[in-house]
C-alpha cells in the first residue's frame, strides 16, 4: 500500500473532527472523497499532509510502510506527498517563480514548457496567490505540484472557481499528474475532493468514499456514487446506511 490510514481520530482546536477513519490507497489508484461541506474532507487531507492545526489523538497514517503520523510537513512532502490547496494563503513579496526555484529539480526548459502548457507565464512574476482568481489559484497549485512531482497527490476541490474553458486545461493537467496515460507502470496515486462531476471525467477514479460527520460511511464506484448524490442528494446515502 502507498497510503494506509488506521482508525484516525483528529481534533481541531479541541473539537474532534475525524472519528476513526480508515482508508487505503495503492500505487496507481485514484480515489475520490465525496461529502457535504463541513463533513471533514479537507481535514483528512490536511491531516495526511501533517498540518499543525489537525491534532491526531488516535490511530496512525502509514506512507510507503513508514509511520508518518507525527512527521513534520516538509518531511512528508520530501517522501512524496503533495497537496493542492483550495484556498492557499497569499505570500507577499515572494513570487511564484521564487518559490518554485526552491524545490525545483527539473531543468529550466522543462519548467518553461510546463508553465506554457498551463498558460501561466505572466503569473510567474507575481506574488504568490496575491489577487489570483479562482482559476489562477488552481493553476498555480497544479504548477507547483508538477514541479514537486509527488507520488501521492491530494487535491482539494481542484475545479472550484474555475470556468469551463479552464476546467479542460486543469483536467488534462491532473490526468497527466496522475499518469493516466500509463497503465501497468502507473505508480502515482490521488485522493481528490470534488463536489461537481466536471473533473470526474478526467480523473478515471478507481474508488469513491463518502464522508459524513467526520466518518467514512460508504465506499464504492465513484461514478455511481456521484450519480446517486446528484439525483437524490446526500440524504439518500444516509438513508442507505440505516
Amino acid at each position: 500500500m502507498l497510503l494506509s490510514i488506521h482508525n484516525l481520530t483528529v481534533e481541531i482546536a479541541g473539537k474532534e473532527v475525524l472519528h476513526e477513519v480508515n482508508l487505503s490507497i495503492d500505487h496507481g489508484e485514484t480515489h475520490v472523497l465525496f461529502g457535504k461541506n463541513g463533513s471533514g474532507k479537507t481535514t483528512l487531507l490536511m491531516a495526511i499532509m501533517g498540518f499543525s492545526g489537525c491534532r491526531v489523538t488516535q490511530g496512525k497514517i502509514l506512507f510507503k510502510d513508514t509511520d508518518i503520523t507525527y512527521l513534520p510537513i516538509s518531511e512528508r512532502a520530501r517522501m512524496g506527498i503533495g497537496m493542492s490547496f483550495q484556498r492557499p494563503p497569499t505570500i507577499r513579496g515572494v513570487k511564484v517563480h521564487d518559490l518554485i526555484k526552491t524545490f525545483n529539480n527539473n531543468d529550466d526548459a522543462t519548467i518553461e514548457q510546463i508553465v506554457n502548457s498551463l498558460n501561466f507565464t505572466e503569473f510567474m512574476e507575481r506574488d504568490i496567490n496575491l489577487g489570483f482568481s479562482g482559476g489562477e489559484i488552481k493553476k498555480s497549485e497544479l504548477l507547483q505540484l508538477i514541479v514537486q512531482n509527488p507520488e501521492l497527490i491530494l487535491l482539494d476541490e481542484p475545479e472550484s472557481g474555475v470556468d469551463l474553458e479552464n476546467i479542460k486545461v486543469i483536467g488534462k493537467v491532473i490526468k497527466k499528474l496522475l499518469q493516466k496515460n500509463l497503465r501497468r507502470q502507473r505508480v502515482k496515486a490521488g485522493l481528490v475532493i470534488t463536489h461537481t462531476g466536471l473533473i470526474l471525467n478526467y480523473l478515471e477514479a478507481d474508488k469513491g468514499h463518502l464522508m459524513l460527520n467526520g466518518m467514512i460511511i460508504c465506499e464504492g464506484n465513484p461514478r455511481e456514487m456521484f450519480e446517486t448524490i446528484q439525483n437524490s442528494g446526500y440524504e439518500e446515502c444516509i438513508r442507505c446506511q440505516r
Partner: protein
Amino acid sequence: MSALDEKARAALNKKALYGPDIDLDRFSSKSSPHEYDPELSHFSDGEKKHMAEVGILASRDERAGSFVLKDHSPIHCSMGQEGVELLTMRDALRKYNGLPDYWWKAVDVDADKYTAQASAAFHDGFFIRVMAGTKSLHPVQTCLYISGEGIAQNIHNMVIAEEGSELHIITGCTTAPHLKKGLHVGVSEFYIKKGAMVTSTMLHNWGEEIVVRPRTTVWVEEGATFMSNYVCMKMAKSVQMYPSVRLMGKNSIARLNTILVAPKGADLDIGGRVSLEATGARAEIISRTITTGGNITARGLLIGQVPDVKAHLECSGLILSEEGRIRAIPEIDGRVAGVEMSHEAAVGKISQDEIEYLMSRGLSEEEATALIVRGFLNVKMEGLPRELQDKIERVINDTGKSLF
C-alpha cells in the same frame, strides 16, 4: 553673533520630540584631521568592506561623483559628470556667498538640540547641485564615516536639483570596524525644482553604541518627484529620524520606503512625514520593519492641506522573537474636503498557515520562514542601480537566513 547663531545657541538644550534624549557632552566634537585621498586608495580592506556594505564603491567608476567624509574631514570629493556639481559644504558656502536662499531654509536650526549642534559645531558635509536639464547617468555616492572613538560628527548636507534635472544619490553611513561609541548628527536640505526628480537611497550600517540623529527636510516643486529608500538592517544603539517632505508644487510626488531590522539592543524610531500643499500632489509612505529583539517605532504622517491630493501610508511589522517591540503609529491629517488619504498598519508574527503552506512543498520550517521574511522586506524600490538593488537583496537574503 548672527541671528542664526543666536537661534542655534538658544536651542542647544532643546530635547527632540521623539527618541531617547542624548547627552551630547558624552561625545567629542574634536578629532584629528585625516589626509585627503584623491584616488580613494587609503582605505584598508576592512574599511572597504564596510563601505561596500552600504553601497559605496572604493572606485569612481560608474559614479557621477564621490564624496567621503571621515570623522570631521572631507577626505575625498570628486565629480564625474558635467552638470553635476559636488562640493564640500564649506566650499559651496564660500563659492555661493553663504547660499542665502538655501542655508537652513528647509530645516529649522532651532528644531532641537541636534539641529542646534549641527549649526553651532558644524564640521562639514556635501553639496550637490544638478544643473537644469542634466540627468545624472550614474548615482552620486556620498559616504559619512566615523572612525574615531567617541566623537560627534555634525554634518550639514544640501542637494539642489535644478529644473528638469535628474539625480540619484547613494548615501552610505558606517563606522570603522570595531568602533564602539559615536554620534552622527546629519542635517540634510533638499531643494527639488520644477519637473526634477531625485532618488535618495540611504544605507546605514552602524555599531553597537552608535547614536544617529538625521534631520532632513525636502522641498518639492511643481511636477517634481522625490523618492527615498532607507535601509537599516544592522545594529545601531539609537536612530531617530523623521524626514519631512513638503509637496509645494502642483502634481509633485513623494515616495518614501523604509526597511528596518532591529536586533536586540537596537532602538529605531523612524518615520516619514509628507505635507501635501498643492493640487495633484501624491505621496506614498511604506515601511517594513522586523524586530529580532530590538525596539522599533515606525511613524508616518500625511497632511492634506488642499483638495485633490492623494496619499497612502503603510506600516507593516513582524516580531520574530520573544523580546522586541514594534509600535506602528500611522497618522493622517486631512485639513480640507477633497483629500484622499488612507493608511494601513499591521504588526504580528509570521502566519503559521504561510509557513506550513511552503513546508508542504518540501521547504523546512527555517527555509519557509526565511523566504517569507525575504518577501516581507522586499519593497519595490524604483530607480535603484542594478548593483545596489542586488546589494540590498543580498542583505535581505542574509537577514532572512541569519534569523535562525
